[in-house]
């Protein structure tokens, strides 16, 4: 039984169709990467799946207990400290105040935040630190499903790896399943069980590729090799860098 199932999702913004016939499913403990060019509707799919947006047509079945989301931008409340932001989902879950401190500290540590940063307001944090606060906020409620919308783009290479390992480790322990949106094919290959490629115009899922072995067992050479193979020999991935190609002078 899949934890999340989208069937025949279509969506339009102000009469302009951005998604059509999107069907996908995520099994328990599975990390599914979703890739596609910029503007193809990846974030919109995540928002529909998480119930933030009502789809124009199609059905969403959610069979998990509790989800969390890391948005493309940090979306922190500027008036609350880092600790206040991380603890926000606990407040919403009506967890008693005295229990929150320990959970916040643990989540912050998992996201690589120092205890001294927790008293700072978002304006006092660097861009990467803000994103880590957003990641800690998603982890604090111990969700069994997480939506990641290009979560690690603002992080440096070392931290990015660490965060990817966090996702891999969670997947291995079957702590949560995830829909992981990314631009970075290396990242997708490193952390996921399966890659879905979205049609450049949002007209359905163009195709999927199963990755052999478990996330975390693939070494860097193998990952790089596979990326080259996808980009050079696999027609499915021909368009995923389309926008980047155009931007290049």
């Amino acid at each position, binding site marked *: 039984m899949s934890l999340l199932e989208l069937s025949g999702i279509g969506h339009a913004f102000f009469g302009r169709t951005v998604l059509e016939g999107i069907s996908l499913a995520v099994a328990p403990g599975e990390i599914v990467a979703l890739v596609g060019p910029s503007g193809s509707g990846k974030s919109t799919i995540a928002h529909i799946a998480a*119930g*933030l947006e009502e789809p124009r047509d199609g059905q969403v079945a959610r069979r998990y207990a509790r989800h969390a*989301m890391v948005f493309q931008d940090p979306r922190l409340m500027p008036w609350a400290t880092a600790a206040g932001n991380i603890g*926000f989902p606990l407040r919403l879950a009506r967890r008693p105040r005295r229990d929150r401190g320990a959970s916040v500290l643990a989540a912050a540590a998992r996201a690589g935040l120092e205890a001294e940063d927790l008293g700072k307001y978002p304006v006092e944090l660097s861009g990467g630190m803000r994103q880590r606060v957003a990641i800690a906020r998603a982890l604090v409620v111990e969700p069994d499903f997480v939506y990641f919308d290009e979560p690690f783009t603002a992080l440096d290479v070392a931290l990015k790896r660490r965060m990817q390992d966090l996702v891999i480790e969670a997947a291995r322990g079957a702590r949560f399943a995830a829909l992981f949106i990314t631009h970075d094919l290396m990242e997708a290959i490193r952390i996921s069980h399966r890659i879905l490629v979205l049609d450049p115009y949002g007209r359905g899922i163009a195709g999927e590729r199963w990755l052999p072995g478990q996330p975390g067992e693939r070494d860097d050479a193998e990952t790089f090799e596979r990326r080259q193979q996808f980009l050079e020999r696999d027609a499915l991935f021909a368009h995923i860098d389309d926008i980047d190609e155009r931007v290049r002078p």
Partner: protein
Amino acid sequence: MLWVGLDRLARLGRFLWSGWAGLAGLALLAALWQAGHEAYGAFILPAPLETLAAAARLLTDGSARAMLATTVERAVTGFALCALAGTVAGVAAGYSPATLRIARPILTVILGVPPIAWIVLAMIWFGTGDGTVAITILISATPIVFVGAVEGVVTRDRGLDAMAKAFGAGPVRRFTHVAVRQIAAHLFPALLLALGTAFKVAVMAELLANAGGVGGALARARAMLDVAEALAWVSLAVAALILVEYGLIRPARAELERWRDAAAPWGVKR
């Protein structure tokens, strides 16, 4: 807890220290006033010190305190009413675009009518007394608060709304946990403006309706051509306004807007 207390103390200290700058501004005003006094003589413009002495005399002889209290009470009551009505109506309209579209032109009309016209109308409808003053304040100051509240609702960060929704907040908690703070940021400047308007309109309505209070005293001073006393009453009313503003509204705002302090670079802390 201790940390929060210390932080509050530090902010109070900074606030008191910034009082010197305010004092310097007032001293500059007093110097200009003094220059005017020396140029035109005591009958047209009494010296600032003389005015202060007159104000002190008024305060010590007892009856002035009662009159001042009347005006302050009227202004603060009117302000409280308009703050409540304006906030509730503004928030409701902010969340309902249709209401807002209907309310906008009405607002323009109400704001376009000068307060003095409302005073005349209110005098005809309610006679002279507390009712006239309260109604005039309500009509002139509510639109200011309303606009502030609407602005707060419509300019709120919808990304934060979506975030709260993703973490399971329903509409009510999205309002109480996320929107309220953003609305307050727009509401407070509007409230300060409304408070000032409430005091001005209270004195004006009292003067025209001859309803006692500071306005009534001003009317008497004008009849006697006593400029010193008139100025003394004016400074007393202004002092009362400053007292209410800095004793009530600014501390509440500082408490809510602590994070803005963190954003300000060193030396620019207000």
